[in-house]
């Protein structure tokens, strides 16, 4: 495996570029976290690989773009997957479009994000770590292809609470990555609501989102 090239060193995993029998491939190799008790560490690593693969596939079944999985190697805790060609993260895209003052492109992106997340939650998939860095974009502004990645913290839950928290996690990441973007995030929420067919459950999810927001603001913090 000398031919693999380190692309990125993250907090939990190293990403390598490689060729998988002629297809461009990314190897995501989770490494041991030395600070963690080894039993806990291997449990989490194993669980996250499985969660990642499972949610990736469930998303595909729901028609959400994710990288094709080529191989899972539990020996070295790695996932081999399709390398998305010429991607730009939603984070970078928002930064670029904001700098250019291109609000129509931003709105179109917000639409796509809202629709994608609605589809994902309709399939009871909880991403668990929604950020604009975990969304890869391809194509031109009017026809964006949005890939979801990094499902290590995902789970399968039907509850409004879990979906509300999922949106809350995105909101937090969104606002901390993109200053003064509350309006854009609201557009995502609107598009999420418009795309969600089950109106009752959608209302519950948004109510939970509100509740979780308030939990943070209203918590009495003693000591």
């Amino acid at each position, binding site marked *: 495996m000398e031919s693999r090239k380190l692309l990125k060193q*993250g*907090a939990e995993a190293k990403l390598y570029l490689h060729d998988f029998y002629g297809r461009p491939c990314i190897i995501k190799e989770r490494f041991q*976290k*030395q*600070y*963690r*008790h080894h*039993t*806990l560490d291997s*449990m*989490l690593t194993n669980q996250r690989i499985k969660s990642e693969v499972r949610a990736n596939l469930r998303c595909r079944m729901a028609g959400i773009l994710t990288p094709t999985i080529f191989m899972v190697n539990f020996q070295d805790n790695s996932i081999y997957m399709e390398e998305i060609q010429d991607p730009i993260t939603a984070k970078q895209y928002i930064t670029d479009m904001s700098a250019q003052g291109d609000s129509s492109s931003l709105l179109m992106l917000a639409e796509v994000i809202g629709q994608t997340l609605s589809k994902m939650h309709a399939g009871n998939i909880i991403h*668990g*770590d*929604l*950020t604009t860095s975990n969304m890869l974009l391809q194509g031109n502004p009017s026809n964006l292809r949005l890939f979801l990645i990094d499902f290590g*913290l995902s789970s399968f839950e039907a509850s409004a609470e879990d979906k509300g*928290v*999922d949106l*809350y*996690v*995105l909101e*937090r*990441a969104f606002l*901390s*990555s993109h*200053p003064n973007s509350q309006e854009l995030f609201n557009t995502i929420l609107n598009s999420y609501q418009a795309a969600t067919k089950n109106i009752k459950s959608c209302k519950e999810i948004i109510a939970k989102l509100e509740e*979780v927001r308030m*939990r*943070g*603001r*209203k*918590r*009495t*913090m*003693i*000591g």
Partner: protein
Amino acid sequence: MVIAIGFEGSANKLGVGIVKDGVVLSNPRHTYITPPGQGFLPKDTAKHHRDHALDVLQAALEEAKIKPDEIDVICYTKGPGMGAPLVSTALVARTVAQLWKKPIIAVNHCIGHIEMGRLITGAVNPTVLYVSGGNTQVIAYSEKRYRIFGETIDIAVGNCLDRFARVLKLSNDPSPGYNIEQLAKKGKRFLEMPYVVKGMDVSFSGLLSYIEEKAPLLLETNEYTPEDLCFSLQETVFAMLIEITERAMAHCGSQEVLIVGGVGCNKRLQDMMDIMVKERGATLYATDERFCIDNGAMIAQAGWEMFKTGLVTPLQETTCTQRYRTDEVEVTWRD
């Protein structure tokens, strides 16, 4: 030269500290300790603070060898915290401010911890893990605010530990968390328990109910010792905290970590954080129980920073609030 005196009483510790231009002159404290298995109630805690306010204030002045007229500003904890103890302590601060004819400043308790941590450790722009009985937050400074990047979405880590200590009927002296830490050192068998990280947030309530439910039987059957459970609980909750701290560091591109708050005294938490931080080539700053645990000097230090930028709180606005988020305060004293 500015001398500030700080009054802290947002929870079960009453502290008065005097700080003179970044030097802590005195920092006495009195802790309200309840019997094993019991938490502290607001009314009793407020009474404790009232009973000891004058003694602790006098000790602070004597130890610092400072006379009231040398003091430039009175600082007190506005919140967050428990209502009655906050109010009882603020009353003392307001009284001396009027008696000594000194300006008064209302301080956010969390910011007190951060500013004290920065002063003691010399950390310049750290990612802050603030962990105590009532707070679990990962904070970083940006654009005039201490912004919260991650936090608990339900109960605080210290609360989780305290409530588990009650299950084991551990002593509250000096603190439940300290006693868990001592037992954990002898723990060997690791019990898997719910580990919940969502983005940069954590959740402890599921874990707490899991262990509250399981512990009695596990202990009764001798499958696990109390030491094992303390050990497993610490390993799990601390790993969650380190994980979100690392995520926040990656997010902000930060190379410094500061741990503050009562739970921050825990050596195991510090050791785990140190391993993570070293792997990233970053630096860990931690303090000891003199400053990690609630104290008066931290309120004096934050108040001192605020006072130096020209802030004072009009007397009629020297109220208290149980809810007071870290990111509500405009940080006028940093660039």
